[in-house]
């Protein structure tokens, strides 16, 4: 009962973006609780945040703070996890070359981590061939390409063209996102899907066989 109460408290602290308090509480409860239970709480919390975001009850500022809190908790929990990485799906993500925007990508990264995926975040200003080589090297199954500028969207197309040219397109699901991106664009360049926010991205990946 105490443990459930503390998990509820953890969920509230993460939702409220209380980074230090969340980490401190995580340090206390990891001693007696299975780490997987904490991860489940984080997953559920992130999903709740997704619903609130969709309903426009919270916005990016709240999500960013909650993400920081979640990452702080994960930092505490991860060393205690005994996960077989081979069974976990790997996602390679980044913001494309010429673009330094990172907010959307960072939120995606946190949401996917909360869902239990192995996330390789390549950062910003990532050229097409780096996405491809990271995806191959890390045996990823999903590649996520973010951009916030119309002038850099062509790099999303270049990544897919590279995958096709190397005859490895079928090995990956390619998700595209960012303010100027649309499903029409995704269809034009041969991406698998356009996801308008991190939560829809996570839902899509979860739906994959």
């Amino acid at each position, binding site marked *: 009962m105490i443990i459930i109460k503390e998990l509820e408290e953890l969920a509230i602290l993460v939702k409220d973006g209380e980074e230090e308090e969340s980490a401190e509480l995580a340090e206390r409860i990891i001693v007696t609780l299975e780490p997987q239970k904490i991860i489940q709480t984080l997953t559920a919390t992130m999903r709740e945040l997704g619903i609130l975001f969709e309903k426009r009850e919270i*916005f990016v*500022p709240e999500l960013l*703070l909650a993400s920081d809190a979640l990452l702080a908790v994960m930092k505490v929990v991860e060393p205690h996890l005994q996960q077989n990485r081979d069974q976990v799906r790997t996602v390679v993500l980044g913001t494309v070359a*010429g673009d330094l925007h990172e*907010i959307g990508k*960072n939120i995606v990264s946190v949401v996917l981590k909360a869902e239990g995926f192995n996330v390789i975040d390549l950062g910003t200003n990532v050229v097409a061939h780096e996405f491809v080589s990271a995806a191959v090297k890390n045996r990823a199954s999903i590649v996520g390409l973010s951009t916030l500028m*119309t*002038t*850099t969207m062509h790099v999303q197309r270049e990544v897919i063209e590279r995958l096709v040219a190397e005859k490895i397109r079928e090995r990956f699901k390619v998700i595209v996102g960012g303010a100027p*991106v649309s499903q029409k664009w995704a269809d034009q360049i041969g991406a698998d899907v356009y996801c308008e926010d991190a939560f829809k991205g996570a839902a899509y990946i979860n739906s994959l066989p």
Partner: protein
Amino acid sequence: MRLAPLMGLPGITLSQTTLRQNLEDPGTQWRSLSMLIERLEPDAAFPMMDLSVEAEALGCDLIKPENGSFCIADHPIGCSEDISKLRLPNPLRDGRLPKKLRVIREMSRHLDCINVAYVTGPFTLAGLLAGATSLIKSVLKNPEFVQRLVDFSEAVIRIYINALVDSGADMICILEPTAVTLSPHQFSTHSARPMQNLSESCPIPVIIHICGDSTALIDEMIGVNCLGYSLDSKVDLPVLARRIPRDRLILGNLDPVAIVAYGETEQIRLETRQLLHNMADKENFVLSTGCDLPMDTQMGNLELMCSLARSHFGERMARQLDRSV
């Protein structure tokens, strides 16, 4: 004003230059723009969108790729104390501000259409100075810091606007993309408020452009007393248009990349006609793109979009004249 696509960069393919050359040399930029505007004859002309100029004039280092947008390499403002170290720029001297003024002067001298100058919006400029992620988090953790930095940014922009007006701009377009991340209340405090101040003090008309899905912010945007609002392709324009007063312009919102830049001819015809059809009863509608067109936009697509618009608005005017006779 009926046709005003956000286009500047496609001129680069006409002048066979690089983006860097255009952003650094006003003569090159004017040449690219003049070729584009002569070809397409919009009712309003924009220069090349460049959100780095004000931050650069304040001392930020930039990354300047040959054919990519200039980006801020570092964010010098970490706390309120850092703001006091900033100095208001002199648009006649600092960074590339004088070069932007020269482009506007050329546009003013040579163009018959409305010439519109861009400025970076106050919250966006604050985000470039402090880092967008850090600023957005500070909205909740340290709102006084955000307010101070936004106030400073507002002062910078005001100075720049005055210089643009002196250079002959007919209209100012405030670019405020970072604000789309905010809640309506946060937007009202940290973006709408300073934009209202800028609009009130500006002697020429002001329009606001916010990229992305600004649906949640529309009421607060309408609260900013300005000439009009340029909206991105993610918003449902006919739905939002019902809330926008008839004395304000609504600009938008063809998808600049999937449709206008790279779409098939049939798609351009369909999407343009559909938008014109859906907005047919709005006298305050101006056909535009949802955001900036990329450099390699197919010229044929742009020409088609413009000709469909002219034909549509021309026919409407003829019908109105028939009815009035």
